[in-house]
């Protein structure tokens, strides 16, 4: 077969894409009418499980941008059993994450020893006012509802998770 000049082949590619888009639809998603679901592990927003947090400050210290602000105070909680000593617990006053600074690196979620921080794939929280991007602890606790279950691992992975 004679060699088709490259100029003609190029025209064929564009015409082919034209027909494919007319028949099959485009590869683009018409946001905001249609929305794609991001993968489960997608780093959208960080959610806080307040009950687990002991304000150990590990996340705040390990953040590369220093965008986590934590204030806590100690209190005496009633003993767990009858006749025991009152325990000292840390109660959170303030746990803010400034999403205007956050790099979405995930170090805070990783280092937390008490599983108080989780990733959620939510991404639609942009604000017209930049100071509204500072999420306080009530807002961070609200994000907990959107946290998905961790996905199943691929075959051959170690069963015990890190």
């Amino acid at each position, binding site marked *: 077969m004679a060699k088709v000049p490259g100029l003609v082949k190029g025209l064929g590619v564009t*015409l082919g*894409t034209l027909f494919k*888009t007319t028949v099959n639809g*485009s*590869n683009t998603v*018409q946001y905001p009418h249609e929305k794609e679901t991001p993968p489960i592990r997608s780093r959208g927003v960080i959610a806080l499980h307040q009950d687990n947090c002991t304000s150990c400050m590990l996340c705040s210290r390990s953040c590369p941008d220093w965008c986590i602000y934590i204030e806590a105070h100690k209190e005496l909680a009633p003993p767990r059993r009858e006749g025991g000593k009152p325990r000292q617990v840390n109660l959170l006053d303030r746990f803010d994450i400034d999403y205007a600074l956050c790099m979405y690196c995930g170090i805070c979620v990783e280092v937390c020893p008490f599983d108080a921080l989780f990733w959620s794939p939510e991404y639609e929280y942009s604000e017209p006012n930049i100071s509204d991007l500072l999420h306080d602890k009530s807002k961070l606790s609200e994000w907990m509802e959107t946290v998905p279950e961790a996905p199943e691992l691929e075959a051959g992975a170690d069963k015990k998770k890190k």
Partner: protein
Amino acid sequence: MIALLAEVPYWGQSLLRVLGGLVAVLLPAGTIVYVFLFKMMSFMQSRLGPMEAGPYGSMQLFAEVGKWLQKEDIVPDRADARIFKMAPVIVLVSTFLLVVVVPFGPEAWFTDFETGVFYALAVSSISVLGILIAGWSSANKYSLLGGLRAAGQLIAYELPMVLAVMGVVIQAGTMNLQKIVVAQNTGSMFGIDAIGHPYVISQFFGFIIFMIAIQAELTQAPFDMPIAESELVSGYMTEYSGFRFLIFFIGEFATAGVFAMIASVLFLGGWGVPFTWFGWTSVDDVANWMNFVGPLIMFTKMMLLVFIIMWIRFSYPRLREDQLQRFAWKGLIPVALINIMVTAILKVVF
């Protein structure tokens, strides 16, 4: 149409001519921008294009026009203000001057020059001036480069355009565009007159050369060195914003439409269908309804040719300036000259 309204006073006729001219230029421009630039380009790139403004994005052009009209009118400090402001108008004026000579029907024409072809080719060169002074007066080194490139390119490609059209003129024996249309629709090839005698078949090489020359005259890729977007940002149009840029933009697509109309008149048979289909023998026989259907047929042929122009525009990278010039002077012009020679010989022999 003008003959139908012979009772209308002269000022009325002129007004109608002006309105008709505006419609004949702007309506194709708008349609071309929507169908080809917004939709066809997007579909070729696996996306849908503007969808928000109006159903399927049909009002996008009006949205864009509105956007440009409300922008600030910036004239650069060091630019030559008078010439800077004149440049876009010159480019658009040449398009309007060009459309008056295109016939849309047996009696639907603006003017009926005996030397229609000569006039059309002459007037289409006015836009070169506009582009050149836009580049020079912008006080911007990128615009200067774009303007100079444009001057060289547009002048170089005028010649193949003229020579390609010469073949058609020789075949038709006249420079009157209306008579060329009639000649195509009443003619016959080798005795078969089922499809008339569209010059695209007998002047095939002339057609190809004309289409390439149009691509260059419109500074569309692969000949868009003057606007080379990745080097010169916008070439000679860089410093224009708002209303003036709108004129350039509409002018670009209006000129594409009008050149396609001229090409369809010269090569595809213009507003007509082969007369034998209806048993007409000359232009006076043609029925009156053809005055209304003629523009529609012309529109369809124009869209077909613009499809080809735009298809090539979206698929090819651009030629470098010297390669472009070499292609014109060493490639197209010799082929066009040979085309004329062969046409003349065959016309005399047969």
